[in-house]
């Protein structure tokens, strides 16, 4: 996780003119993806999340000011074109990195990593509880919907939405009551207001070395790019 963060940071600091630096970064990332045996389709499907940013990036050359140039007979801004490249390359690499992290690391390990990186435990605890109970709540909602449908409820118009709102309220109350019961269960096992440190595996030096390779490559590229640019 520290490695992923380091890699993204290094990529973000790489000057945009250093096209070759990004190429090396991308190659290194691809190599890791191959090593981790994450299927390409899986990565591509999740990469669609950056489409809104890409769309915005593609508009920049047409609206940015500055020196104009012709690309395929259309006048665009040179500055804007570089801006587009900048966003595309960095967002693409950044998003790919986080997808890779999410694909290869399980949720508990990510949460544990966040705690180790000194993210406030209250926040990681909230995230952990959210992940634990989100599925449960979604399932409850689904069952309530089925129960409504079973009794002939088929909402088509806005004025039929009242039962949905009511069920959302009921769901809220149910979740709140569950919260109370979970708290009781925690108290019953000696919870005294702070999460105790649970034994969890931490990364060894070999893992640090393996994970560190990627950000090191990116950092080297960032430095090289800066040197060449000046």
């Amino acid at each position, binding site marked *: 996780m520290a490695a992923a963060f380091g890699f993204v940071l290094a990529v973000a600091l790489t000057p945009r003119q250093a096209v070759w630096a990004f190429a090396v970064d991308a190659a290194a990332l691809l190599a890791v993806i191959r090593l981790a045996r994450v299927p390409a389709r899986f990565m591509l499907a999740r990469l669609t999340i950056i489409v809104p940013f890409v769309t915005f990036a593609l508009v920049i050359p047409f609206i940015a000011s500055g020196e104009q140039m012709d690309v395929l007979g259309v006048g665009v801004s040179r500055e804007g074109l570089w801006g587009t490249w900048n966003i595309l390359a960095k967002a693409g690499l950044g998003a790919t990195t986080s997808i890779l992290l999410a694909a290869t690391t399980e*949720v*508990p390990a990510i*949460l544990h990593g966040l705690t180790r990186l000194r993210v406030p435990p209250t926040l990681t605890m909230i995230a*952990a*509880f959210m*992940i*634990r*109970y989100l*599925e*449960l709540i979604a399932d409850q909602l689904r069952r309530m919907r089925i129960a409504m449908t079973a009794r002939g409820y088929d909402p088509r118009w806005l004025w039929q939405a009242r039962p949905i709102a009511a069920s959302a309220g009921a769901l809220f109350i149910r979740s709140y009551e*569950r919260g109370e*019961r*979970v708290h*009781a*269960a*925690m*108290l*019953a*096992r*000696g*919870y*005294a207001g702070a999460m*105790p*440190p*649970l*034994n*969890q595996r931490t990364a060894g030096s070999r893992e640090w070395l393996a994970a560190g390779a990627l950000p090191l490559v990116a950092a080297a590229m960032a430095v090289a790019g800066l040197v060449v640019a000046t």
Partner: protein
Amino acid sequence: MTHPAVEIRDLTFTYPDGRQALRGVNLRVEHGQRVALLGPNGAGKTTLALHLNGIYTADSGSVQIGDLILADTSLAEVRRRVGLVFQDADDQLFMPTVRADVAFGPANLGLRGGELDARVAESLVAVGAADLAERAPHHLSGGERRRVSLATALAMRPDVLVCDEPTSGLDPAGRRELVAVLRGLAITQLLITHDLSFALELCERAVIVSGGTVVADGATADVLADEQLLETHRLSLPYGFNPATVGKRNPGA
């Protein structure tokens, strides 16, 4: 040991909304006894269970676990001595993995490092769930969830185990596994249930709680043989089930 495992004296409790759930409960459970706590819905069984662990504070009366009377100063130790297994495993299991969940209780007691690992392993083995350690609780089957819930309570090495409706929602195989696990545990057990055949199978003694007080207390076979009593308190035996004959063939373990 001169003190019984559990001694409850004249316990009363009223919910904040004014509903009186317990109206003077008296109950004494000896060490190593396995007692079935029977009663209709809303009788106060779960409320009583939550008192044993100091989750609820009684209006009057006292709860004593071994030599300790439940009070603010003894709360932590009483919670260690009494392992509570909730009816809904989704309430009991709140951590992202089974291992972390089982470790939660002993870690609160101050266990760390290898000692904590050993305690987690020991508890999971006791319920036959050693292979589930890395799983997420919401991906377990009903029976697995129930056994892991049990492990989270056992990890505290309690003197008294209190289970709220342990058989509810289990399929016959899951129920059988649970019976085997509970039978193998050599600690005092208080099993809250509607499942009368489960009570007869495991418990030598049965207590009926109804309307917030104890209305019957005796050998399970005798309590279940009193049809009038069962009917009054909204309990009924499974169809074709005769506790007198079953009891002779299979005396309470």
